[in-house]
């Protein structure tokens, strides 16, 4: 495995909830609660999960916008928190962010040239050949014309604006780009162009991406590895193909089955209808509040597997389970919580056997 450019160890971000006259902390929102992973040079890690799972908070911590409550972020092996102010500024140049909404991420009162050239102004750098030439080159790199520098953001379409945002992020020649849902605000036709641009840039400049998205299709297309987040934890992490084709964690399976398939016949095929799709796994209930996550495995309150195990779950056996990814990923392979890995054979048939109603049927198939 190549040298990691970015390493995250047990990263935690808690937001205090303050109430009352004395602003006492009455609760803590555990947005990110112990996440570890590594990102190698030239690779893309896709981060998926539903709203509120902590994806964006994680992305913002990596880009230096949020400070972690605990844990370490290592860029090229250096702990960001331990560095001096100047050192942090230097490292910050190496991790840049692409934002979700291209309509709010560009200052409407600055010209494109000022926006893309601002990183140079902030870091007091005069690039070789002058700032204007450098801005022109950056605009060409992302598929715009150098002449666009004198225009203003409102004169561009969403896709073009996102290209401007990417050009700004690339100005300081970073090694790592944190993309927080970079295409989810764009038209589907434009999404493809921007994703392709990102892939071309990765090839050309050897960039590493942390690609946050809730669109599983886009992540499958661009990511080499996928990490699935639920309630501030990574519940499954592995090479893209493995996670998509052989998801082990019940949450990942539910997430994958909820991804829209552009074919109604497949989409609504009954569960277990061989060769026509797995049928949708419907998770019951809402995600628990991140202020008071369930003890043990955070997913056990909604886990069809936990329910299938029935009495064992009721005894609280699952509550004591550390069904969360911790520490290093052994051997860089497919990684899920131990319990899910152990119980996985029970779920092995590709049909939604752990889907509460179909459990008996699936068991029959197996026996």
């Amino acid at each position, binding site marked *: 495995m190549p040298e990691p450019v970015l390493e995250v160890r047990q990263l935690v971000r808690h937001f205090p909830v303050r109430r009352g006259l004395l602003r006492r902390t009455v609760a803590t929102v555990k947005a990110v609660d112990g996440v570890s992973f590594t990102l190698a040079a030239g690779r893309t890690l896709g981060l998926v999960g539903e709203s509120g799972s902590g994806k964006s908070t994680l992305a913002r911590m990596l880009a230096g916008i949020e400070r972690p409550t605990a844990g370490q972020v290592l860029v090229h092996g250096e702990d960001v928190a331990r560095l001096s102010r100047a050192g942090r500024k230097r490292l*910050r140049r190496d991790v840049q962010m692409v934002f979700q909404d291209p309509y709010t991420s560009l200052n409407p009162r600055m010209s494109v040239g000022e926006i893309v050239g601002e990183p140079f102004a902030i870091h007091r750098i005069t690039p070789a050949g002058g700032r204007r030439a450098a801005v022109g080159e950056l605009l060409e790199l992302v598929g715009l014309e150098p002449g666009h520098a004198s225009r203003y953001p409102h004169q561009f379409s969403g896709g073009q604006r996102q290209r401007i945002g990417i050009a700004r992020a690339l100005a300081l020649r970073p090694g790592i780009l944190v993309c927080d849902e970079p295409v989810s605000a764009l038209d589907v036709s434009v999404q493809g162009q921007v994703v392709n641009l990102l892939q071309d840039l990765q090839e050309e400049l050897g960039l590493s991406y942390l690609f946050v998205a809730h669109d599983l299709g886009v992540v499958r297309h661009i990511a080499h590895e996928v990490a699935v987040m639920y309630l501030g934890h990574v519940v499954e992490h592995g090479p893209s193909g493995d996670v998509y084709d052989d998801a082990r964690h019940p949450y990942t399976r539910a997430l994958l089955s909820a991804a829209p398939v552009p074919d109604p016949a497949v989409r609504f095929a009954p569960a277990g209808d061989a060769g026509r799709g797995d049928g949708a796994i419907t998770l019951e209930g809402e995600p628990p509040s991140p202020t008071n996550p369930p003890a043990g495995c955070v997913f056990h309150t909604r886990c069809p597997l936990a329910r299938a195990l029935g009495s064992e779950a009721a005894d609280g056996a699952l509550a004591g389970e550390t069904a969360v990814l911790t520490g290093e990923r052994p051997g860089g392979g497919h990684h899920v919580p131990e319990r899910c890995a152990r119980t996985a054979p029970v779920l092995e048939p590709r049909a939604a056997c752990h889907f509460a109603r179909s459990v008996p049927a699936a068991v029959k198939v197996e026996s």
Partner: protein
Amino acid sequence: MSEEARPLAGAWRALRRRPDTVAAATVVLFFALMAAFPALFTSTSPRSCPIRDARLDPQGWGAAHPLGTDALGCDVLATLVHGVRPSLLLAAVVVGVSVMIGVTLGLLAGYYLGWVDYLVSRAVEVFLVVPLLLAALLVLSLFQGVDLGAGTFQVILLPAVVLILFGWMPYARYVRASTLEAKNLDYVTAARSLGASDVRIMVRHVLPNAIGTVTALLPTSVAGVISAEAVLSFLGIGVRPPATSWGIQIEQGSEWVTGGAPHILLAPLVCLVATVLALVVLGDALRDALDPRLAR
């Protein structure tokens, strides 16, 4: 840098294309000229006030008293012309300094929140609940024996201090509110993740997008200052005689509106309304011109 100069050049081009803007600019220039060179507009002294000529009706151009005389027999046109300088200077100084104080404090409060915001917000509330006249009386008693001199600036110094002291709060409030809104937008986050300093973020990103409400407030504030100054004059801490101002004229003229001499009030009132309207139009045009989204 030419990149910096371009928005201003564009602003000038957009300004020129609007006839209402040109008219408004003409009005403002006219009064500015009057303030600078009052002798061009009248040869009568505002201090020669023969009481037997009191409350003469307007006599038209070329006559001794084109706009008539006031209750004391002073020439209305001469008073008007000589009152422009203190009135406009006072308005400009008060609005300018209050905006500077208000915008700075509002920006700091909205950006840093925490104890800065606590201090600024409480200060705003304290100054808002103290009645202007009460505070004016206090300042008056503090400065009663002080002779500041007779120059235009010295004449307006006292009312300026009082009006600034109790005039900066609305700006601070508006700017604080729009700063709160603007500072959470992605482009501010983007600048921060690039490592921009707080000052740079405030000046380049937050302020230009938060100042809109204040520019809309400015022209009417000018009118407010001129009329507030009239009230202060009544208390003796406004512009002091023998200097004159539009505020004093309006104050004195209002007694005679129903007494057969409405021109004493109407002359300065028309000038005040014209100035304020011109500033409203100019303010609108300037705001549109500086907003790249509205440029053609």
